[in-house]
């Protein structure tokens, strides 16, 4: 079977070490030869509430979250009740012997307290579950040790002991579960979540400056840069607000450091004026928007894809931009690199749209070939430009002007938020204005030539074509495979760059399919509307999800069945 995979769901309160258990499992599974896909959901609180870390694993690439649980690892009693409806046929739960077990659930009841000694209940659960899943104890112990860090030797030691006794108990009292057999992985794979991949992509592309104001889910991008700031010589500054963050990045970029600003919808709303500033001053800046449900503060820790139109239109006046929407960990890495390159090349704002689900979703990927990666280095050699003759905004056929950096040569670099002369000085010369507008807009031609085409997978002449963008990629692909196997020839068209749109790259596909459905994590069908506006193509059907949870194959199939 193609989707021979297994879904472990670990549930508990915030503060119970869920993240540690989940990450250790993820790594251990990958080291054991599995491919993984992680979905995290949590409430907006630091302690308490109900959080979930779900790992779906198998021998082949796992594309999407699923709604059926094969092993429910409960770190508290409530978890058993909250997820009892989701248990797969034959599914098992792991619980403390003292907890009440809801009717209909088959559970392994472990003595969490006596095995844990002193407050390591999460480690007990990890050990018992590890044994049930046939993960070798040393592999899980090694992953745990790595996550806890080298700092606290006594803590690692204590955890190690608890893990051992949990394995021993499990071997004596339980039967191992039927799990898919691992695949043979040629290369050791690395495990990253979406925002770690964005951060590493940015670093590899040469980003040296990051300013941010904390906001879920984008803070994790800044944290990845902070984590490696010393090794990679990066300045990361927590600004006083989002307005400062983007203006600082623009200042740093103007003076020569490739810059990244991670934020989320509400924070981005504050940055919008400076998006125009980057455009008119022709200063490169990459803005990452980790989408979460709005309007305003919305659901702070849930997921949605509803900021496409906002980002597309953010900023006053008319200017070119590019908007990326990665759908996988690899795309998070490579498209962030591309965003940095394009910002530098076309000297203006470039956007990356992720979301809460993708930000926190760990997956295994092949290590990136660092040797082959280029990085950007802003600023040109002044060469033959006479000292007094440098014009920051020289009007060129491509719209891109030579960029020198202030203070690096004797040339004076003048940048302005007003309409300006070629030399950068404020002007009210209305005959110059159209020339400057056109110069900036000409960059679109270059940007359009570099658009990443939407990816197409599945039969060439589908009965049904599923169309989507960003993080729903895997769910679309799995839904398409399931439908095809059930006899309905289905293909997928996925946009990982949502602006500019180049008709020639996709319009025929839309027209050729018997039926097309646009699947989006928002209520109004923003991509569908954009495609209609740009091409006139109207989707006959839409699937929308906006309850704060990620798109799943099951959700898509259920919605299609209703239409």
């Amino acid at each position, binding site marked *: 079977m193609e989707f021979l995979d297994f879904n472990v769901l670990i549930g508990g309160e915030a503060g119970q070490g869920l993240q540690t258990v989940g990450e250790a499992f993820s790594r251990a599974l990958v080291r054991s030869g599995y491919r993984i896909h992680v979905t995290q959901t949590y409430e907006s609180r630091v302690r308490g509430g109900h959080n979930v870390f779900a790992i779906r694993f198998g021998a082949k690439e796992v594309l999407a979250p699923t709604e059926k649980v094969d092993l429910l690892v409960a770190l508290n009693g409530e978890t058993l009740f909250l997820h009892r409806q989701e248990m797969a046929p034959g599914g098992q739960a792991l619980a403390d012997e003292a907890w009440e077990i809801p009717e209909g659930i088959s559970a392994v009841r472990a003595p969490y307290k006596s095995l844990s000694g002193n407050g390591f209940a999460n480690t007990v659960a990890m050990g018992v579950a590890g044994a049930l899943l046939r993960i070798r104890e040393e592999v899980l112990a090694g992953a745990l040790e790595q996550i806890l860090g080298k700092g606290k030797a006594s803590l690692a030691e204590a955890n190690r002991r608890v893990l051992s006794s949990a394995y021993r108990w499990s071997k004596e009292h339980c039967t191992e579960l039927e799990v898919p057999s691992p695949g043979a992985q040629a290369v050791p*794979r*690395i*495990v*990253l979540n979406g925002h770690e991949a964005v951060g*590493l992509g940015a670093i*590899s*592309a*040469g980003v*040296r*400056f990051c300013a941010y104001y904390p906001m879920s889910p984008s803070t994790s991008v800044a944290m990845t840069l902070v984590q*490696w700031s*010393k*090794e*990679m*010589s*990066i*300045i990361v*500054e927590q*600004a*006083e*607000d989002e*307005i*400062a*963050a983007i*203006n*600082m*990045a*623009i*200042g*740093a*970029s*103007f*003076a*020569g*450091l490739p*810059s990244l600003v991670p934020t989320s919808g509400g924070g981005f709303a504050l940055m919008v004026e400076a998006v125009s*500033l980057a455009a008119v*001053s022709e200063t490169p800046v990459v803005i990452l928007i980790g989408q979460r449900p709005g309007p305003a503060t919305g659901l702070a820790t849930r997921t949605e894809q509803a900021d496409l139109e906002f980002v597309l239109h953010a900023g006053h006046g008319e200017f070119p931009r590019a908007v990326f929407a990665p759908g996988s960990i690899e795309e998070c890495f490579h498209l962030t690199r591309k965003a940095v390159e394009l910002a530098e090349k076309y000297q203006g704002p470039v956007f990356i749209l992720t979301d809460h689900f993708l930000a926190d979703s760990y997956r295994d990927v092949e*290590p*990136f070939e*660092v040797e082959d*990666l280029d*990085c950007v*280095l802003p600023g040109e050699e002044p060469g033959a430009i006479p000292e007094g003759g440098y014009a920051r905004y020289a009007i060129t056929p491509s719209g891109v002007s030579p960029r020198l*950096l*202030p*203070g*690096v*040569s*004797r*040339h*004076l*670099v*003048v*940048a*302005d938020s*007003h309409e300006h002369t070629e030399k*950068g*000085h*404020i002007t009210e010369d209305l005959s110059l204005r159209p020339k400057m507008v056109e110069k900036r807009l000409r960059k679109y031609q270059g940007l359009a030539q570099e658009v990443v085409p939407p990816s197409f997978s599945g039969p060439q002449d589908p009965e049904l074509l599923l169309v989507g963008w960003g993080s729903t990629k895997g769910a679309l692909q799995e839904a398409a495979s399931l439908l095809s196997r059930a006899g309905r020839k289905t293909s997928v068209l996925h946009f990982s760059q949502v602006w500019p749109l180049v008709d020639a790259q996709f319009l025929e596909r839309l027209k050729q399919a018997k039926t097309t459905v646009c699947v989006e994590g928002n209520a109004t069908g923003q991509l569908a509307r954009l495609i209609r506006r740009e091409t006139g193509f109207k989707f006959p059907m839409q699937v929308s999800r906006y309850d704060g949870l990620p798109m799943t194959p099951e959700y898509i199939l259920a919605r299609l069945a209703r239409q």
Partner: protein
Amino acid sequence: MVNIEQYGDYKTSWCPGCGNFPILKALKEALVGLDLEPHQVLFVSGIGQAAKAPHYINGNVFNGLHGRSLPVATGAKLANPGLVVVVESGDGCMYGEGGNHFLAAIRRNIDLTVLVHNNQVYGLTKGQASPTSAQGFVTRAQPDGVFSSPFNPIAVAVALQAGFVARSFAGMGEHLVEMIQRGIRHRGLALIDILQPCVSFNHVNTYDWYRKRCKPIGPEHDPRDWEKAMALSLKWGEEIPVGVIYQNDRPAFEEHFAVLKEAPLLGRKVDKRALEHILEHYA
């Protein structure tokens, strides 16, 4: 030797008689006196009449958004700590729209020289009250007089232990040149609040009004004595003290970045070996 011609002579869009003219002249003289060449200096400003000043002087320029000069200047200084960065702003731009950045920049103590052309009014938008307008100040937008109490930039800066806090007056050329030079020499954030007559919209705080009141601070004041500086910062009225009110030796913000210790980050390629090593961490 640098001479004043290098800094250019431009037509401006200021009203004849505006206090911005002597400030611009003093700025050029200060830079010449420090033997700085135009390409060594970056002028950063926001929006307003005062914020146009960088367009009327030779140098590198980033003229950005209303109220946002300080974040831009901060980013640029971190990118290239070798630049002398001078921020030019009006009181509305700096203390109104940019108020939060003003507080944050002082706390960071980044090495910038902040010149605020303080005319107690919004000039460019035609005469509304600004954060420094006196209570009762009547404008077309505030026909019943300003109700809010005025923002005291000097007291706020001293309270936050800014690196260097001074006041000067557009009508005191030499004094102003000296203040700007001391501000640029100071390592850390230097605020120079410059009293600037607006001949079009402020008919109260005129050249004469200031001339009668501005009194240079005597040598008896020790600018390193925070409590005395705090007391002095509150003085305003029949006598307005001008000069260095407060100064300390807090390290400048850029010094705390370990990655800036060896060399600026500008022009450095990505260290691929280090990156490879980092990727191993995720295995």
